[in-house]
């Protein structure tokens, strides 16, 4: 199934039970379930996975929580590669040099979770497991440096490391592989190399997001900050 495609004037498609179309006219208009946007000087739109920072509340998430079901028990000094698929949001964007998202919508109710205590924990975007179109493959390369077995039931990743790549004119999407090193009390996560034969999803610039969120740039930078590694405090 071709999910991530180009929407040209007069064409329409159905994603997750929602019909989206780029109606011909002067000016053309993008329509989805009662949501409408007029377009000027834009004849086509791109459909691709959206980064998990827009829904349910734009800009609130610096981390995503990926459930690992069934849980994995990693023995001392052991290594394992776990591949999970999680449901992603869909973005419709302009094919311009500076990208603007025309629409971002979920394929299932977007939800949040707190990692840690509700008093001072991390508010994360919860990535539901799923199968089929609209999901992103997450490859976790887990290595334990710990002397005792560690149970891994979910993993918290900074959104800056959760980099999504997709193949246009297909329904394939993956994240950069995540190298997870378990060090007993903490887990260190690093993003691996970009996958071949895939392209990174078009992202809105900081300027664009700042305007959309109506927040100060410094707040946004904390969301987009390129973090090389993340310490998960007892984060299994």
């Amino acid at each position, binding site marked *: 199934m071709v999910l991530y495609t180009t929407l040209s004037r007069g064409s329409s498609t159905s994603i997750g039970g929602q019909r989206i179309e780029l109606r011909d006219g002067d000016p053309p208009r993008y329509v989805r379930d009662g949501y409408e946007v007029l377009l000027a000087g834009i004849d086509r739109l791109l459909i691709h996975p959206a980064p998990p920072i827009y829904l349910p509340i734009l800009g609130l998430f610096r981390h995503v*929580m990926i459930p690992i079901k069934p849980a994995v028990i990693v023995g001392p000094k052991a290594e394992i590669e776990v591949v999970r698929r999680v449901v992603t949001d869909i973005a419709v964007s302009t094919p311009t040099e500076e990208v603007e998202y025309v629409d971002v919508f979920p394929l299932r109710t977007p*939800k*949040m*979770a707190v990692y*840690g*205590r509700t008093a001072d924990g991390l508010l994360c975007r*919860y990535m539901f497991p799923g199968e089929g179109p609209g999901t992103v493959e997450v490859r976790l390369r887990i290595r334990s440096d710990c002397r005792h077995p560690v149970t891994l039931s979910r993993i918290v990743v900074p959104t800056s490391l959760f980099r999504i790549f997709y193949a246009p004119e297909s329904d394939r999407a993956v994240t950069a592989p995540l190298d997870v090193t378990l060090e007993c009390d903490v887990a260190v996560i690093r993003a691996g190399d970009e996958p071949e034969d895939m392209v990174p999803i078009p992202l809105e610039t900081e300027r664009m997001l700042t305007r959309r969120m109506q927040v100060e740039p410094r707040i946004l930078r904390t969301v987009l900050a390129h973090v090389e590694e993340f310490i998960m405090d007892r984060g299994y």
Partner: protein
Amino acid sequence: MANIEILGFQLPFTYQQLYSGVVTLAFFAVLGLILRVILYRYGVRVLPKKIAESISNTVFYILIFIGVLGLLGNLGVDPTSLVVAGGIAGLAIGFASRTVVSNLLSGIFLYIDRPIKEGDPVEVEGVGGVVEDINVLSTRITSWDGVFHRIPNEKVFTTIIKNFSKTTARRVEYKIGISYKDDVDKAREIIYRVIDEEPLALVEPGPQVFLESLGDSAQILAVRFWAPTPQWFTAKTKVLQRIKEAFDREGIEIPFPRRVVYIKDERDMA
């Protein structure tokens, strides 16, 4: 050396006394200015700006006061009597300004303790609203209905403060009564479904719906779920309405209080 004479009046001090008095005052003034700058610059690194400002200003004025005492001493005025007079006046002012000092100290402690800060949604002394300003004497809050409140820091410091922004998530809780003829499991399932469909209700910690008690007219279900603190109120109002709508759709009755009344027949008593 002769005393200074102005327009025929002879002043009780000489030019030398005046000169040394002015030098003393100038010395303390310059020292005060330098100390004020140094204290402020170092103070703002470890203390809130307003506190650093207050401390540096206080030190400056104390030094100016000492300089003035020095000037008067040089001019032949006995500083001891001034100090005694000042002490008595200070005592009187001290008693009168006990509340002011108490507020000032409470303000300093509030700055150190930081239970609230500007912009926090709070409830203090029964006033719920957003903190607009905390200065050394009072805390200013704009209540939810837009009314300005000035609360003395002494009260803020000694009362119970509810700060609604300190935690990541808050729990929403309802008590919902359903009719005795309705199936508790079905009602629970409907509520779980509504919560699952609400983006503001968190997946972790998960929601809880359980039969809490058997009331006079209804089976009471307790509903608990968590929402991000800033969206708590929105989640609370949205989900309750959705539960009511879902119950109406699914035919779950939220009963009125009922009382069965038996009327005794007088003839039966006979």
